[in-house]
């Protein structure tokens, strides 16, 4: 019995370790590539571990034309996106969490559908509209479609967050002298803040990673992924590796910070009633 148990545990750990390595090694490899001296990337045979680590590749990447600018653009678009998304989506999440009203279920269903919809494709018709509205090739324009992509997630996650703050607490505050808004601001908001921060980070990552719409809606004001993809055919390998590495850094960090909330957004698919 205990022998079999031991065998079972060993097998489980071996399987889990293998899968973990499968996930981690490519991330490690892009890290190595980004810090390998440039000419060593083109050597044959190439050793897996470079002779020494160097910042040369990263420096080249950051020094390349348009990179720093697109990097700043990416940050700006992501910040705009998370601002828009939370400003628009959080009140809806609050409404769904707090009130029973006619059309509530229809709204939730609509949100679930839009979450699955390939919203990025809408950049194609939006490009035409945006030219007319003067939003084409602007950061706000990109942020708007990113918001459309992130909004369903924001509504779903903020619904979960506000459901986690008991209604009683706000009502207690109201009996103690707060207005409805005062009760929200003094009780619900502080308690929801960690969750809202997670939603913000998730939104940031969605925008930071998005490439299709960003590439289609911009010409000169490119975000980092848009810049990389539009120049990819013409750029050297080291540029691409450094770019890949640079893209995953903040995303990995944010995803780690909000790991607890991921289940809210994805796990909810079947949990929704």
């Amino acid at each position, binding site marked *: 019995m205990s022998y079999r148990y031991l065998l079972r545990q060993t097998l489980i750990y071996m399987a889990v370790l293998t899968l973990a390595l499968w996930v981690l090694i*490519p991330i490690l490899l892009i890290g190595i590539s980004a810090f390998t001296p440039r000419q060593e990337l083109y050597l044959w*045979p190439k050793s897996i571990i470079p002779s020494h680590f160097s910042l040369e590749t990263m420096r080249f990447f950051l020094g390349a034309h348009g990179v720093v600018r697109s990097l700043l653009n990416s940050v700006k678009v992501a910040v705009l996106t998370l601002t828009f998304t939370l400003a628009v989506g959080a009140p809806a999440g609050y409404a769904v969490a707090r009130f029973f009203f006619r059309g509530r279920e229809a709204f939730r269903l609509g949100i679930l559908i839009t979450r699955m919809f390939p919203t990025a*494709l809408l950049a194609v018709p939006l490009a035409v509209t945006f030219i007319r509205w003067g939003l084409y090739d602007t950061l706000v324009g990109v942020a708007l479609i990113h918001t*459309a992509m992130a909004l369903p997630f924001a509504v779903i996650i903020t619904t979960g967050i506000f459901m986690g703050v008991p209604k009683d607490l706000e009502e207690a505050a109201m009996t103690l002298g707060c207005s409805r808004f005062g009760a929200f601001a003094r009780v619900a908001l502080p308690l929801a803040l960690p969750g809202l921060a997670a939603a913000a980070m998730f939104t940031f*990552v969605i925008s930071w990673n998005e490439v299709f719409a960003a590439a289609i809606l911009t010409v000169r004001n490119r975000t980092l992924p848009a810049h990389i993809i539009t120049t990819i055919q013409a750029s050297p390998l080291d540029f691409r*590796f450094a770019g890949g590495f640079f893209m995953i850094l903040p995303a*990995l960090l944010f995803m780690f910070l909000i790991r607890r909330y991921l289940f809210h957004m*994805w796990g909810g698919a079947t949990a929704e009633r």
Partner: protein
Amino acid sequence: MNERLRKLLGTDTLLPYWLLLPTLIFIGVFFLMPLFKAVGLAFYGKDGFTLAYFEKMISDVRFFDALKFTFLFAITIVPLQVVTALAMALLLNSGFRGSRFFLYIFALPLGIADLAAGLIWLSIFTHRGFLNSILYALGIIDRPIHYLSYQNINYTFLSVVAAEHWRATAIVMVILVAGLQMISKDYLEAAEVLGARGWKKIWYVILPLLKPSLQSALIIRTIFALQTFAVVLALAGQITPVLAGEAYFWQFLYRNPHVASAYAVLLMVISIAMTWVYLRYLRSRTEVIRE
């Protein structure tokens, strides 16, 4: 005041609608409107309704390749991901020490963009990349293989599959783990009492109960796999064209929003069809559960 009017105007009746309003407006302007606009662009030219753009799309030399590869990717990647993710989820669910830690490791690629994933695997598959280096070090090959070239289109295809498989398994895993957590312990204990252990328990108890989650993961991934674009572009360039990539090129290079919209509409129609299947299936399930 009239009772009904009073009830209607009560702040609590209207407040939720005010709170929904921004979202509804936003979805209207930046979701529904472009949706109709896409259809408009695809079917209406200067002279009104036309199928010319679709004809142009279909007569393009790369169209059928794109269609073929898009579906090939989807039907290769999705099952691979579901199987891998299921293995991950079941392993994590067996509750060994440190399973939480591994859960977060497995979930890491969730934050990685498809473009970044393409670039990561480019460092592996490029002809002086890690794969060739390792194979050389092991003495298996003596000159690099060009995985990403027209000559080795099968390798190219597999490279893209490897990258997408690696990147998007995490989402499926998260959905399945969440689904497993929702399965009541009572069922599992009842199953054990009745003598179902190990594989039997997984096959006869867990999998059927996990079916809604599996279904939903399957279809979410199918829809997104059909949009595969940046991974392909980063790894394969134009070697294996895909529909989303064609939409991008028609818009971005050839400056033809009509044909680009035709591609977009085609993809949306496929996606909506999948969504419909998904909803239909999910609804019937929840109704069964409710009764």
